[in-house]
């Protein structure tokens, strides 16, 4: 078998001095599904960008089908038969599927007019060949995420690529949708496609890959066939040390009810009922997980509880006091903290200093400020202590938060929220997009808070995270809690899927 792609000694240094690829060498064989795995910042995204012509390497050589290539843009890569499905879909939402598919390769009539008939014939031929089902006349914005992704894959196939790069394709999918994706990837492999699959989710790598390349810190650590590695091996090689993916032990003591959500309904500015009659309780010392596909009302639920929005109907009770309609600060001073889902938008002020972000919830209290003036001596010593206690990796507390890695930015937020002695924690997607090492730390912090009798509401689209941490699980679908599970230790992701997709509902 010939290598479809051979990469030799690739070095990539970004203008800010970050060395993302340090002499990376790799062979990708024809008609295989080749997974490239690694933590965030391991260099896998950079490598794929180089393969697709989005970045130029400083050193090294790339051979595609035996030919040495120098890609200056994605167009060069597409010409050599390489296509890429990005994590953020490259689709124009208001155009139809058909229009998105033909963009850039439009056949013409009389040199100026679009030849829609010829284009459609070609598309139908490819649909038949690859057995991919897509609605051509619908607008992209009307499609569910799984179908949008199918459009992206098909868009690449239509450009006659035989090497497909998929950048974390399952990040946005439910387990069921991911299974459908895997089916079509296997089908594509049978049709002769070579697939490069970027991921950091161990389970799915094991499920789909033929060959696994592990990257860490800009280097290729190993390349093995799937059979030679266990999930545990992959995790260890990725992180460089032993990591625990086991479910946290059950809480020792569950106390009284702290947070009660009663008949909560919310109608948004478009008069759409985003939340319908939500009821649940969270007690001291337990973690209640809310599982669901994103966009089913989780965001609004969290914003209502944390005081960012006001409910249309119903109550939110914190220690037997109705807090709905109270201001964010009034709610926070009662001991409720919030780890928001969008860390750059609601979690930090990215251009402000690290130390300023660490005290942004308490700057007005003594001894942080005194008679209206900030006490920097105290602030600095407190910030340095927190950085140390919570293992935030930074050169100085004076640096802007934006200079930190994603995982460390999340640690800054978690540190601020958990260091104020909270009674209730609302954690929304606390480990989204951060590396396995940071994820483990964040999870430990949340678990420790639980053991200190905190009540935790965990909202996450990541089922592994839900199953690892939760004491109880509620599934939200289309603004309703459709199912609750009180026994989590025997629960599997597959059990949750049908409820998350609205196929099944409990009583």
């Amino acid at each position, binding site marked *: 078998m010939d290598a479809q792609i051979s990469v030799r000694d690739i070095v990539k240094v970004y203008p800010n001095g970050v060395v993302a690829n340090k002499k990376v060498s790799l062979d990708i064989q024809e008609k295989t599904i080749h997974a490239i795995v690694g933590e965030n910042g391991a260099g896998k995204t950079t490598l794929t960008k180089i393969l697709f012509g989005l970045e130029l390497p400083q050193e090294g050589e790339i051979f595609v089908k035996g030919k040495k290539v120098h890609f200056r843009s994605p167009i060069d890569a597409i010409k050599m038969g390489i296509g890429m499905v990005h994590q953020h879909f490259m689709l*124009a939402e208001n155009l139809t599927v058909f229009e998105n598919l033909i963009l*850039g390769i439009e056949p013409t009539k009389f040199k100026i007019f*679009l030849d829609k008939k010829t284009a459609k014939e070609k598309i139908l031929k490819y649909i038949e060949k690859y057995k991919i089902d897509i609605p051509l006349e619908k607008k992209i914005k009307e499609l569910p995420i799984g179908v949008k992704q199918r459009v992206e894959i098909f868009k690449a196939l239509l450009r006659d690529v035989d090497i497909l790069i998929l950048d974390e394709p399952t990040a946005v999918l439910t387990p069921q949708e991911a299974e459908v994706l895997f089916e079509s990837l296997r089908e594509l492999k049978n049709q002769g496609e070579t697939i490069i699959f970027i991921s950091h989710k161990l389970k799915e790598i094991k499920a789909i890959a033929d060959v696994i390349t592990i990257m860490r810190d800009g280097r290729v650590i190993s390349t093995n066939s799937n059979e030679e590695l266990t999930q545990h091996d992959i995790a260890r090689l990725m992180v460089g040390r032993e990591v625990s993916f086991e479910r946290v032990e059950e809480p020792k003591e569950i106390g009284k009810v702290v947070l009660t959500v009663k008949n909560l309904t919310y109608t948004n500015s478009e008069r759409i009922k985003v939340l319908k009659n939500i009821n649940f309780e969270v007690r001291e010392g337990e973690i209640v997980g809310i599982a669901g596909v994103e966009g089913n009302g989780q965001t609004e639920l969290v914003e209502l509880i944390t005081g960012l929005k006001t409910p249309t109907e119903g109550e939110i009770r914190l220690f037997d006091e109705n807090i709905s309609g109270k201001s964010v600060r009034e709610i926070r001073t009662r001991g409720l903290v919030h780890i928001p889902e969008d860390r750059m938008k609601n979690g930090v002020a990215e251009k402000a200093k690290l130390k300023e972000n660490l005290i942004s919830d308490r700057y007005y209290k003594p001894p942080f400020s005194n008679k209206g003036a900030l006490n920097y001596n105290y602030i600095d010593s407190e910030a340095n202590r927190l950085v140390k206690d919570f293992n935030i990796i930074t050169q100085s507390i004076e640096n802007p938060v934006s200079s930190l890695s994603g995982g460390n930015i999340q640690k800054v937020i978690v540190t601020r929220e958990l260091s104020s002695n909270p009674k209730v924690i609302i954690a929304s997607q606390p480990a989204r997009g951060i590396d396995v090492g940071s994820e483990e730390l964040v999870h430990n912090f949340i678990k420790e808070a639980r053991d200190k009798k905190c009540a935790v509401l965990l909202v996450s689209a990541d089922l592994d995270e839900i199953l690892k941490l939760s004491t109880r699980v509620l599934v939200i679908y289309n603004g309703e809690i459709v199912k609750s599970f009180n026994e989590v230790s025997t629960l599997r992701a597959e059990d949750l899927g049908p409820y998350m997709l609205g196929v099944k509902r409990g009583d």
Partner: protein
Amino acid sequence: MDPFLKSILSTSFLFSVLRVATPIIFPALGVAISALSGSVNIALEGIMLVSAFTGVVVSAYTQNLWISLFSAILAGVFIALLLGYFSLKLKADIILAAIALNLFSSSITVFLLYIIAHDKGVSSSLKSLVFPSVKFAFLEKIPILSGIFNNQNILVYIAFLSVFVYYLIVFHTPLGLKIRAVGQNPEAASSVGVDVVKIKLYALILSGVFGALGGVYLSMGYVSWFGRDMTAGRGFIAIAASSIGGNLPLGTFFGSFLFGVVYALTNFLAPLNIPSEIIQVIPYIVTIIVLTFYSARVSKEKEVGEE
């Protein structure tokens, strides 16, 4: 019947609506096509002024309609290219660049007018040409339609035709598809090899052509002279008109038509016993109302998009 109502219900009222809607249809198409490509083009005011001026001056010297039309279009495209150079190449804020170009156009035309015609107000000393009106024999036999559509200036018909051309470009050419794609998701467009800057520039050039036709109509059809700042805000009203129509061909046409009705009404109200200042302000008040509703709608859509 009330004489005012009678005059509004006459064919001559609709005739006049088309006449006054034309210098809004052209720039509205210009605003619309650049809006589709993702550029907010508020420079139509300047483009129209410069083209109106160029058309008059060139026709006075060459006495040739084709040459003056061609030069006026070139002048309009030149301003559009300047806008493209500032915003796309030098990455200046497109709104600020357009404001600068509008101010520039307003003063350079007056300056050159003074040099050429020795007048800071109007070009009446120049012997400039006008585009002819057209009489369609087949229309004459149809009573009402003839009164409305026949004997209009040729550029009025070209305005109708332009709406159709706009439709063809946007929905039936690769360029139109690229313009729409670039306006919605430039990253997606460039990922399949579309040159985003080039497409945006093409859209601006097209808006220069549409704007130039509007300018030429003003000074060589609607009236027969160039006057300082004679566009009188039509380039901005065009933004309202294309917004009402969601930048779609028919929508933009009807948006412009609506403003045509408002303008025509003000003309027909003039003989009544109402202070003329109040009458003249009506189109601008309508613009404010329309834009307020429009921006409220847009921000609402945005909110939904973010949720």
